[in-house]
């Protein structure tokens, strides 16, 4: 499927700042500043000089810059040693390299399976108590 899509790359360079919503079907590289909402079906790279305050939906993601916001990724999320991030990550594969700064909650597919029975059991108990 990906082979049919032309391998276009959109780069928001250092001097560019964008405020709003960005939706696309191609590889995006951000070296500038961005605020808002970002969605792409392809890979996303935030370069060292990139500063992003946005909720992100993408395939693979490489973060070398600064990100404040949540990530919903269908691929691998990589935070390199120069990456700094505050926010939640939802992805199946996450790599956080030594030196990276991160604050937030991580949700992998396996951990969501672990959490689900725990969430259901207290509800059942509370129902039993009310019946008594």
């Amino acid at each position, binding site marked *: 499927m990906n082979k049919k899509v032309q391998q*276009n790359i959109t780069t928001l360079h250092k001097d560019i700042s964008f405020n709003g919503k960005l939706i696309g079907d191609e590889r995006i590289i951000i070296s500038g500043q961005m605020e808002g909402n970002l969605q792409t079906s392809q890979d996303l790279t935030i370069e060292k000089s990139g500063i992003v305050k946005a909720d992100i939906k993408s395939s693979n993601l490489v973060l070398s810059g600064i990100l404040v916001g949540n990530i919903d990724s269908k691929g691998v999320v990589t935070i390199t040693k120069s990456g700094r991030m505050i926010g939640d990550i939802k992805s199946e594969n996450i790599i956080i390299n030594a030196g990276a700064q991160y604050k937030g909650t991580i949700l992998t597919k396996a951990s969501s399976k672990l959490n689900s029975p725990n969430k259901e059991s207290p509800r059942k108990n509370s129902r039993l108590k009310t019946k008594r």
Partner: protein
Amino acid sequence: MPKTTIGKSLFLDGELSGIDGLVIEGKINGRIEVGGAISVEKGSVVKADIKANNVKISGEVKGNITSTGNVHYMEDCSVTGDTTTSRILIEDGATIKGSVHIDI
């Protein structure tokens, strides 16, 4: 430094600003302000006020264009909105609806 290109598949809604030039192939709603040259390519749809140095339009623009340099409307372009510039070039076949102010 290479110019920033907004690719064909991209849709931007919001404010875009920069110091350098910009090439637009996708769709943009909102406001654009760049210090360099801006080029709206064929097939792109821009619903935004544009402020730039040199402006070259081959696609569709709905909004006011303010330029500190040249404005170049290519053939097959479609512009709805006012143009303020110091120099303008309109090619044969360009569709324009709006007033033009040429301030020297």
